[in-house]
């Protein structure tokens, strides 16, 4: 009882206050000032099937925050029953409007029948005061609700200017807006078409509305729209007085059962297209599906071309779709597939079974459909699985960039080099093109997988972000520098440089790093009595060094004794093939214990042998 009393008090309080909202007719272009929306407003006369919008602005003229809960046009002043001749767009359900704030929405007068029509614009809201809560379900704390009848809207609905119709065996049918149009049951090997006529009912010219199919978001449409006129040409933008034009919708199911909802939109009118794919011959039962390179599985409909997407012309790329054709377990009979063909330039098939092929219930065959265009353009082909027909479509584009080129200096690469690469275009870049230059290394040495010293010096890695500034023929890195410098490492093998830009065939050049005899880059020979210490730094890009020869000379250059032969194969092998992080680069230290005066020993000639040859260097003792 107390609750009811509180609600009544709150309601009385709300009704006693001046209106919290003021409504205006609003010009969205800002050319005209807002004018108050009168209690009774005469709408423009509107033809059936057309729409007259009225933009309304609601301003919070109270000192409290207003919580707009709904706006609608009702059939009666004291009713919440929606008037079907009106719709609202820009709805704002649950919008908080602060004092002096506003909300704009549109009332659409779209009469479904002719004659005078009246609607009542209603605006429901809550008003925040006395610490109440908008979202509370407790009557004691909820903010008071009100519904304003903003304005009585009257308008005259005139006969439609354009009338859509289609022929049936029983005569011409004029579908009402939002009605359903059935295409019936159609074999998955067949098609069924309806020709629609859009006729101008008046003596003067009238613009034609947009005509389109609205398809399910994740499905493949089984309907196809063709607005090409019988004599050729596109659907006219307007119809002369009492003239008409036609368009055709074709139902071509590729799958059995009811098709996903598809809508035919003709201006503001929308029609639901229905139909079902059925089995007439055994082959109609086959379930056809394909999976693309990303793993997405699609159930094709004959009405919609099977899309291969876009490839680069002449890039050697191939798009492939993996098909599975299944005879459902519930089938009574095995299905014999007499033919499986693909036609059209650029399209091909692989992995097809020997034909004719019998597919038992619960069994399937697979094959691969290929698209490999050699020139630029749009390609259309056809896939026939017995009597089941599908259109194939693919696109091939030319690179938007001029031809890429690569110039490496020196042209003949060897190990232990810091080489330059300049990435160029045949002509100036028409836009700023961002890409990458990557390097791959393939060692030629058995049991060696990589050489970490093969890298770009600016990134210490094998990837480099590069770009062609607009108007430039030479690529630069992110410090605007060119050429790009890379190390060739110290392992025999092949270096591949690849430039990649969007919508451009990757450009690759490969360079061979040939096997070479051991190279010594620095060394020393020290007298550390009673030892002689010889140190050599260098590389062996074959990882096969082993045999060493040391020939000692006195300070006058005379040979002291026969060369000392030593096999360091095990030391080199251990170094090269156990946790190697330095490629073929090495530091060799050899220590010779000596009895006698080491100051009399002047120099040593060291010969190192690997699979590519011998190298001899001489070091003078210090």
């Amino acid at each position: 009882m107390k609750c009811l009393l509180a609600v009544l008090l709150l309601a009385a309080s709300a009704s006693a206050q001046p209106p919290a909202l003021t409504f205006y007719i609003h010009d969205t272009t800002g050319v005209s000032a807002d004018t108050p929306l009168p209690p009774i407003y005469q709408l423009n006369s509107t033809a059936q099937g057309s729409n007259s919008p009225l933009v309304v602005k609601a301003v919070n003229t109270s000192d409290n925050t207003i919580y707009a809960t709904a706006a609608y046009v009702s059939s009666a002043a004291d009713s919440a029953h929606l008037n079907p001749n009106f719709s609202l767009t820009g709805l704002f359900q649950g919008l908080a409007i602060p004092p002096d704030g506003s909300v704009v929405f549109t009332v659409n007068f779209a009469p479904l029948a002719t004659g005078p029509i009246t609607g009542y614009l209603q605006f429901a809201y809550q008003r925040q005061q006395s610490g109440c809560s908008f979202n509370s379900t407790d009557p004691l704390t909820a903010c008071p609700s009100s519904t304003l009848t903003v304005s009585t809207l009257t308008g005259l609905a005139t006969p439609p200017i354009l009338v859509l119709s289609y022929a049936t065996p029983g005569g011409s049918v004029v579908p009402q807006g939002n009605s359903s149009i059935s295409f019936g049951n159609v074999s998955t090997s067949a098609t069924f078409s309806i020709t629609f006529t859009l006729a101008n009912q008046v003596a003067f010219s009238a613009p034609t509305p947009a005509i389109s199919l609205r398809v399910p978001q994740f499905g493949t449409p089984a309907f196809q729209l063709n607005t090409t006129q019988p004599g050729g040409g596109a659907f006219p933008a307007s119809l002369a007085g009492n003239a008409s034009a036609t368009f055709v919708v074709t139902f071509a199911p590729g799958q059995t059962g009811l098709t996903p909802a598809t809508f035919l939109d003709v201006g503001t009118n929308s029609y639901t297209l229905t139909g079902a794919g059925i089995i007439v011959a055994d082959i109609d039962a086959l379930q056809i599906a394909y999976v693309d390179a990303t793993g997405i599985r699609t159930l094709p409909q004959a009405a919609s071309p099977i899309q291969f997407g876009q490839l680069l012309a002449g890039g050697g790329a191939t798009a492939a779709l993996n098909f599975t054709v299944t005879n459902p377990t519930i089938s009574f009979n095995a299905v014999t597939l007499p033919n499986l063909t693909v036609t059209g330039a650029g399209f091909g098939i692989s992995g097809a079974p020997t034909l004719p092929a019998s597919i038992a219930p619960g069994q399937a065959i697979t094959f691969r459909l290929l698209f490999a265009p050699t020139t630029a353009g749009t390609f259309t082909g056809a896939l026939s699985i017995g009597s089941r027909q599908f259109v194939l479509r693919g696109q091939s584009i030319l690179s938007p960039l001029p031809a890429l080129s690569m110039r490496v200096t020196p042209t003949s690469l060897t190990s232990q080099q810091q080489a330059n690469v300049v990435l160029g275009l045949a002509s100036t870049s028409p836009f700023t093109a961002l890409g990458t230059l990557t390097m791959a290394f393939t060692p030629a040495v058995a049991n060696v997988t990589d050489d970490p010293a093969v890298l770009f010096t600016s990134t210490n890695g094998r990837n480099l972000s590069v770009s062609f500034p607009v108007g430039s023929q030479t690529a630069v890195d992110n410090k605007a520098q060119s050429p790009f410098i890379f190390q060739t490492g110290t392992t025999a093998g092949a270096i591949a440089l690849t430039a990649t830009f969007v919508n451009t065939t990757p450009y690759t050049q490969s360079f061979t790093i040939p096997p070479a005899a051991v190279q010594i880059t620095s060394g020393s020979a020290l007298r550390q009595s009673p030892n002689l210490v010889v140190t050599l730094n260098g590389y062996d890009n074959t990882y096969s060094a082993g045999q060493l020869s040391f020939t000692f000379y006195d300070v006058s250059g005379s040979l002291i004794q026969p060369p000392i032969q030593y096999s360091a194969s095990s030391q080199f092998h251990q170094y090269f093939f156990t946790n190697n992080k330095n490629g073929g680069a090495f530091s060799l230290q050899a220590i010779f214990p000596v009895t006698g005066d080491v100051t009399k020993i002047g120099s040593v000639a060291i010969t190192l042998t690997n699979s590519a040859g011998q190298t001899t260097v001489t070091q003078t003792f210090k």
Partner: protein
Amino acid sequence: MKRYLGCCFLFACFVAAQVSAPNVGSARFAGGRVFAVHGIPANLLVAQAPWIAADAVSFSDAGGLLSRNGTLTLVGPDGTSFAAYASGEPAPVLNIDGLLSSAIAWLPSKHALLNWSGAAFLLREVNDSGFAGKVTCIQLTSPQVARLLVTHSDTSVSAITISVDTGEIISSDVVPAAHGFTFAQGPLLLSEDPHGLAVESTSGVRRSVTLSQDPLPDGDLTLERMSTDWLHIASASTGRHWALYLTSESLRLSLLPVPPANEAAQ
């Protein structure tokens, strides 16, 4: 029968041979991060992560001298710390080019030499009023004598020799043909050149090391010793780093791969 002089020597047939990764040294990059570097000229590998952070460094094959937040630290070849000295000096000039006993530093704010005796750091104040200018390089030319390279305001360069024992100035000589930032590598002098560096030998032979086709701004280059024979050159304007292998017999310039920017020192 052929006679060999070796009859007066006895070479053991035993040869101890060891193969290892060629060491280049350590280099200091942006943020003071110090990375180990291995390899040979034109084939350099910078470690994935820094092993220490420092404000200034100098390394030889025997160890290194580092400065961090005013503290100088002497480290061995494996990075092990031997000794530290709290100098409070924000911008010391460091050098070590041989054994640990070659470690020496110039402390500009204290007008003093600091060297490693083999057992302790020794500080010697120097009356430097006679050579106004900026010390760009210091080295021990003998256990008792240090040499400073000083760049004056007119970019001329003087070589000042100082007694390590007393801090007394022994001599002051103008270095002909050198100007601006000057660095010593053994008997060789490196000084700024419009496009890089000029290397001059004691015999006056001069060789240019081109680092950039475009002229570099004055004071653009920083040189630090990576090891006995390797120098690290950094250009502030180009962001590039080089490793220069420089001995009396050989000069090899290599670009130094730049390590990732976000690696923190261990």
